[in-house]
């Protein structure tokens, strides 16, 4: 996926549980090019993540709120909320 607005950043999104099921196959991660200044919430919007999943988002392995601004090379994890084990 590309975005026309330079300067761009490239990030990796790690998808979890049912979010991996995209376009008829399992996709554990994908790379996104975004305009600089993009936030985690922009990623959720771009990927059309269902709000009902109440996703937990992490940046480079640490929980981060959706308004966090992203940098080039960031690793973003999107994990549907669950409870009960």
């Amino acid at each position: 996926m590309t975005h026309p607005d330079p300067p761009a950043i490239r990030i990796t999104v790690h998808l979890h549980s049912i979010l991996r099921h995209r376009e008829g196959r399992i996709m554990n991660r994908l790379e996104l090019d975004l305009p600089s200044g993009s936030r985690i919430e922009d990623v959720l919007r771009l990927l059309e993540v269902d709000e009902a999943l109440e996703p937990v988002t992490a940046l480079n392995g640490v929980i981060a709120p959706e308004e966090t601004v992203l940098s080039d090379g960031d690793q973003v994890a999107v994990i549907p909320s669950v409870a009960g084990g």
Partner: protein
Amino acid sequence: MDTTSPRVLRINMETGEVRYEPVPEGWQRLGGRGLTARFLLDEVPPLCDPLGPRNKLIWAPGLLVGHMLSSVDRISVGGKSPLTGGVKEANAGGTTGMKMAWLRLHALIVEGGPPPDGSWKLLYVNAEGAHLEDASDLIGLGLKETGRRLMERFGPKIGISAIGTGGERLYLTAGITHVDSDRNLTRISARGGLGAVMGSKHLKAIVFDCPRSNQPPVVDREGFKDASKRYIARLQEHPQTSQIYTFYGTAAMVKMSNAFGGIPTRNFSAGSFEDADKISGETIHDLNESRGGLVSHACMPGCIIKCSNVYAGPDGQTLVTPLEYETIGLMGSNLGINDPDIIARMNDLANDIGIDTIDTGAALGVAAEAGLMQWGDGARALELLEEVRQGTPLGRIIGSGAAAAAKVLGVKRAPVVKGQAFSAYDPRAIKGTGVTYATSPQGADHTAGLTIRAKVDHLDPAVQVELSRSIQYNTAGYDSLGACVMGSFGFALEPAIVPDLINARYGWGVGPDFLRELGRQTILLEREFNRLAGFTPADDRIPEWMTREALPPTGAVFDVSPEELDTIYDTP
């Protein structure tokens, strides 16, 4: 015999007497966990020896059990815990609750000491009556062989509650195991050592022989049907119960817990495991599917969520059913083990011995810290579990759980409250669940009130007590209905469903506060039993080392105020 009214079946193991009684008035509106709490206060001396003749065990199906309503057929087993010294209720899925409801058993009570001649018994129950039989041929057997022989003897459609060798040997990690909907004897009322109580009375198994459906009567059939329909629709609406747990099971929790820095790692010395990907729900799903295992499986007959699984090994043969998050956390990351097949084999072994994988995994973590195994050494972990099976001195220490193992092995960092091990959420990173661990009369137990899904800052100590209190009340309510935590997602979407179901089933005319109030009253009864058993505020604390030792990567300590912990149940 009147087989239409609910009854209490009471068995005295010492005298051999088996008798049916009417349900006492004060018990008629209680079921599941609520009934276990009332029963303990009514019948069990709080200061009794948990493994002595004055302790009793109760089996109590929840109030809505018996209708094959999805995720609402759980059985509660209660007694005084030899692990915590306090109140204990351990509930499980499987078919025991349903069979008891079909046999119109409101409760089954086992009391007294072992038979004077030292023999072991099994209890056989069907619609005509109940009697004790000799069980000497089953002694020393694991649960797989026990289940096989019982089904050979009484037919494949029986319900079973049984102990393995762990219960026979009075291990404090021993649970009571029930048959699932596919005849696997693997659904365990795991926590608190109730299997040891059953073993102390020389009762190896209970057989519930009721092959045909005999659902309990319903006062308002149409109303019940309507509320059930709405409940199922809500379960189908909620992504956790209609998709995530159906395909990934509770193992979906690995990545979330790891992201919060709360997955137990190397005896709770870190909250993030570098190999979390290798033991994640996603990895287990893909591996299991490629090997021909079942990624989705119902432990109770009517369940539509099917969060259980049947995990296959590399040869396609079943390694264990089910493989769940708590076990992955305590027997995986907590030991530095990153191989799902090793965790599955450990789980299977624990199931056969009939012991709690949480407390046993935590005890192995303590043993590793004491130098008895290297972190990540799966072969050694299996060897240690084999010692538990064989009953060697070291095996008995591990089988006694994390608290006892830490004392014997000289490990200061015991991950326990009230002598019971933490589940797979570090209380420093998920502080609301830490509050539950500290304050629940049950001892450290996520099933008493798991807060990880709440949209709060899990590191902020100020918001955790209110959160935990609310979830604890509701959870104790669900535990009294016989509802699984998974079912609560459907109920929470439309709170009127629970009172509607209760009113249609019993005609009690309960209001919207029914669930929370049922739960709150249950917890207050449990707390009263503990107070009479000698518990003080000192028992409602997270271990002191967790208030000082910062947990990587968040650097969090447990810092919820003790004053708030002490007054948590003062608020309705």
